[in-house]
């Protein structure tokens, strides 16, 4: 089914049809219903079949790129510190040695993403756009709770098939807030959170040394140590440590804060 039909709005392309050589016959699809926007599930059955065939032959289909990660966040006296490692894996291979896992949501809200890299990227971009439209409509700086609600409702709608585990942090008119959002749509509002494959290592550091109302330097050191624990003790995390310090009216995006695993130095 060749589908070279030019778009109707370009009128000039219609006149050029007369001059095309007769060997290029254009066929139009016979489509009785207009195409539906959004996710298309047409290929699902075919994919299941292909996976079955591939496993019979002994090989496997390529895996999606995951971020197999350590991400964490902590609330300190004046704001929020978010931290992340920078390794992206594709099965057993490192796909990206220096990927950026702290995504921009709004000038006062940032979000770290673990799980499938494409899912976290697209989800945070969609929510960022929606939040921008929302803040233009209300005329106010967006709140972290709004971003949390939007993310939670979208992830629940897709029942966990969008593999995005997020740590959302920011400072709004009510002070600093930190949320962790799981792929199925549940959220937790806590003073310190960790997510990803290295979350246990990072949480061990937090549980040992967290105190409420820390200073900024102390909080940065704590997050750096937590991510380093994840980098050294988890296969899925590695490379550098990125930090993002959000306070009222100011964001410090420190990339890289620390090069824990420098390439070439054993």
């Amino acid at each position: 089914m060749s589908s070279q039909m030019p778009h109707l709005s370009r009128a000039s392309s219609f006149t050029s049809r007369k001059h095309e050589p007769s060997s290029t016959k254009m066929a139009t699809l016979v489509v009785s219903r207009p195409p539906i926007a959004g996710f298309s599930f047409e290929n699902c059955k075919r994919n299941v079949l292909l996976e079955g065939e591939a496993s019979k032959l002994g090989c496997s289909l390529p895996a999606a790129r995951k971020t197999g990660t350590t991400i964490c966040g902590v609330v300190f006296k004046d704001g929020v510190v978010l931290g992340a490692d920078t390794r992206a894996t594709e099965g057993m291979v490192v796909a990206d040695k220096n990927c950026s896992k702290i995504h921009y949501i709004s000038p006062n809200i940032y979000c770290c993403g673990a799980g499938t890299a494409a899912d976290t990227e697209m989800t945070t971009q969609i929510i960022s756009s929606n939040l921008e439209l929302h803040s233009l409509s209300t005329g106010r700086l967006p709140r972290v709770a709004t971003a949390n609600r939007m993310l939670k409702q979208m992830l629940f709608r897709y029942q966990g098939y969008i593999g995005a585990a997020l740590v959302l942090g920011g400072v709004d008119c009510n002070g600093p807030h930190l949320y962790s959002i799981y792929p199925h749509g549940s959220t937790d509002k806590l003073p310190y959170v960790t997510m990803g494959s290295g979350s246990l290592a990072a949480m061990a550091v937090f549980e040992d040394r967290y105190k409420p109302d820390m200073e900024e330097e102390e909080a940065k050191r704590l997050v750096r140590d937590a991510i380093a624990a994840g980098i050294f003790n988890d296969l899925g995390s590695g490379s550098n440590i990125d930090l993002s310090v959000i306070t009222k009216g100011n964001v410090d995006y420190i990339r890289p804060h620390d090069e824990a695993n420098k390439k070439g130095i054993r």
Partner: protein
Amino acid sequence: MATRTLFHSPLRPVEDFVGAGFAPDVSSYYTTQAEVRAYHRESVTKGDKMNSRGLRSQLKDSVPVAGLCPQGAYGLQDSLRSGFTSIKNELLPSHPLELSEKNFQLNQDKMNFSTLRNIQGLHAPLKLQMEYRAARQIQRLPFLPSSNLALDTLRGSDESIGFEDILCDPAQSEVMGEPHMMVEYKLGML
């Protein structure tokens, strides 16, 4: 001057809709007053009674179908147009999210309308649904992309971006349906 549509704003009161009747602008993008008069004349001479419901709302696919059943006549598969059938395809969805995504907008609307009915009484969802029906009929011909501006404004989706704006955007599709077939299908002639 050609009138664009009969409604100038989606929020007109109920009486205006009932009296005016919907323009049967079946074959034209814009309806002119002359055409409306001609239609009236013809239907009178043919002895058809002027149906108070707009023709558009009786056209195929104007009400979305919930579920996976085939959309041919009497629920049978239309092999010529929709290809071969497979009972498994009709009974089981190919992905657990398929049905839920297909009916997402419908279910959201149902939930919102029932909440509204419980809070404000029957009149509120009734008026809103009338406006939705009116706005849904403001469409271009089936093979052309419609902006659905009034519908978007009513729904509030003009201020939000979702996957339906990014993935499989019908305005950016590389293929165009065969115009005659699509219009004939819509009119139920096919």
